[in-house]
């Protein structure tokens, strides 16, 4: 994939940053907050915070079945949010977008509902060593419950999927292939459209963990062709407690419900229950309405910026950062070299300094990064690492943030000299 000749117009980061109230903070020494932990959770623009607060100030009510104005407004806004999300990921039918708490719940929903229906003893499930625990452990549990086998596609030293290995696993005709669109630990972008085609050709159902792609790349679930796609609102400028499972309609229609209770039934009798249509079937209980509305506003905010521009901006910033950081003495950078295969995530080590010490010193410089295994223990073990320090970008970061990161790392080097 070559870089497009005409890059889209650059983001106006100063203007964007002004939309995010939290970024105005400075520490005692007057250093403004440099937030480089968006892969863990993004910050929220004022329009999102206000949409949620205004919902509670003006429109709050339980949705569905209420005939008074508040409940009608709440219902309409909730369903509008669903349409916005559907448009954002190019889902053909909003009712195939299920609101959940986060990516983790979305994947568990599929593992419990689809998984226990379809996976039998002896079946093969395939995940990758790039996956986050949330796209690993539910499949471990499913494999154990059903007596199935779970195989892990390997990664190369450069942090890419080992194509040969994954190809050989597909030859064994797995029932399920689950993989990340973007690795949260290394930033690796996986060519999920191609792997989906190959996996489906081998007979597999495909789930894509989009937690790290939806906030940073244009996502088109129809073009990817996967069966399921999961994302988290809180990584995508939206409130916590909002997330989406998208699925192909025939899949979702054929699945039994996961959580059961109020709101997802058609008829309950003492002898049994029939289920509501999509999306209600998978949204038991009172949903997080204000949070879903916030998610709708967040995806519109991103759409207005333009996901092509967002991607291009973060690509350029990653380019700048890799270049800037690799000049620092003793620094070690992980992940793919090719910028077309890499989102705005930089995992690194500073000599022998423990990543928690790096992150703590950076915190003293008001630079927020994450240190640890990034919920990717199997990947860390594969790469023979205990932990890394990770800086990750979003629309509100620019080169001045990278410069602040670099000088903070210089202090680490100094302290540990």
């Amino acid at each position, binding site marked *: 994939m070559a870089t497009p000749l005409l890059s889209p117009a650059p983001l106006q980061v100063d203007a964007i940053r002004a939309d995010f109230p939290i970024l105005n903070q400075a520490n005692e020494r007057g250093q403004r907050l440099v937030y480089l932990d968006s892969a863990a959770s993004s910050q929220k623009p004022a329009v999102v915070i206000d949409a949620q607060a205004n919902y509670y100030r003006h429109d709050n009510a339980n949705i569905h079945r209420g005939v008074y104005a508040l409940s009608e407004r709440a219902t309409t806004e909730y369903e509008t949010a669903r349409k916005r999300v559907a448009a954002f990921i190019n889902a053909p039918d909003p009712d195939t977008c299920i609101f959940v708490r986060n990516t983790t719940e979305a994947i568990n929903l599929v593992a419990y509902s689809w998984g226990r229906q379809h996976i039998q003893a002896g079946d093969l499930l395939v995940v990758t060593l790039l996956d986050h625990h949330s796209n690993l452990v539910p499949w471990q549990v499913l494999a154990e419950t059903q007596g199935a086998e779970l195989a892990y596609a390997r990664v190369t030293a450069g942090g890419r999927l080992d194509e040969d290995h994954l190809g050989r696993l597909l030859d064994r005709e797995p029932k399920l292939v689950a993989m990340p669109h973007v690795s949260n630990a290394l930033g690796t972008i996986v060519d999920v459209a191609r792997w989906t085609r190959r996996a489906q050709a081998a007979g597999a159902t495909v789930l894509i963990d989009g937690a790290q792609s939806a906030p940073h790349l244009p996502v088109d679930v129809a073009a990817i062709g996967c069966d399921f796609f999961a994302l988290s609102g809180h990584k995508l400028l939206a409130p916590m407690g909002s997330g989406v499972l998208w699925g192909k309609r025939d899949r979702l229609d054929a699945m039994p419900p996961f959580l059961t209770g109020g709101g997802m039934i058609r*008829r309950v009798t003492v002898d049994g229950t029939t289920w509501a249509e999509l999306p209600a079937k998978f949204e038991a209980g009172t949903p997080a309405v204000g949070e879903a509305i916030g998610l709708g506003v967040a995806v519109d905010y991103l759409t207005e910026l333009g996901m092509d521009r967002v991607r291009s901006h973060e690509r350029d910033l990653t380019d700048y950062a890799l270049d800037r950081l690799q000049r620092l003495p003793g620094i070690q950078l992980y992940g793919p070299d090719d910028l077309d295969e890499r989102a705005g995530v930089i995992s690194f080590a500073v000599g022998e300094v423990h990543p928690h010490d790096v992150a703590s010193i950076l915190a003293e410089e008001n630079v927020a990064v994450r240190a640890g295994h990034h919920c990717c223990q199997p990947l860390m073990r594969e790469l023979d690492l205990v932990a890394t320090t990770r800086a990750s970008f979003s629309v509100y970061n620019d080169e001045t943030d990278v410069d602040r990161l670099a000088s903070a790392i210089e202090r680490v080097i100094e302290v540990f000299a």
Partner: protein
Amino acid sequence: MGDSLYRELIMDHSKHPRNKGTLDPHDYSYQDVNPLCGDEIRIDVRVQDDVVSDIKFSGRGCAISQAAASMLTEMVLGQPVAEVKTLAKEDLLEELGVPIGPARMKCALLGLKVLKAGLYGVAPADDSL
């Protein structure tokens, strides 16, 4: 209270439903429920020369669903089946003459949904109405 859902026309149809009952024999008959409210409507139709020659509805439920079904039977009696098949929900809503909020929309349209399902011989998806 000029914009009340419960203005006189609707209350008149609710209290004095037109074409209430069943037809036996009939050419088409269909019934459905609105699971949220428990509204039930059945519509029986007789056709002669491709025209709705007789129509009756029965059921129980809220005033809106029953009045709308009653008004619907008046609208289509004597109309060509081909035209009834293309009747839009907007046509019925206009006849009702009051703004129907989203929560009561299913009540107002239940009769139309049942009628079309009967004429087409299948249950249309909710929004294809």
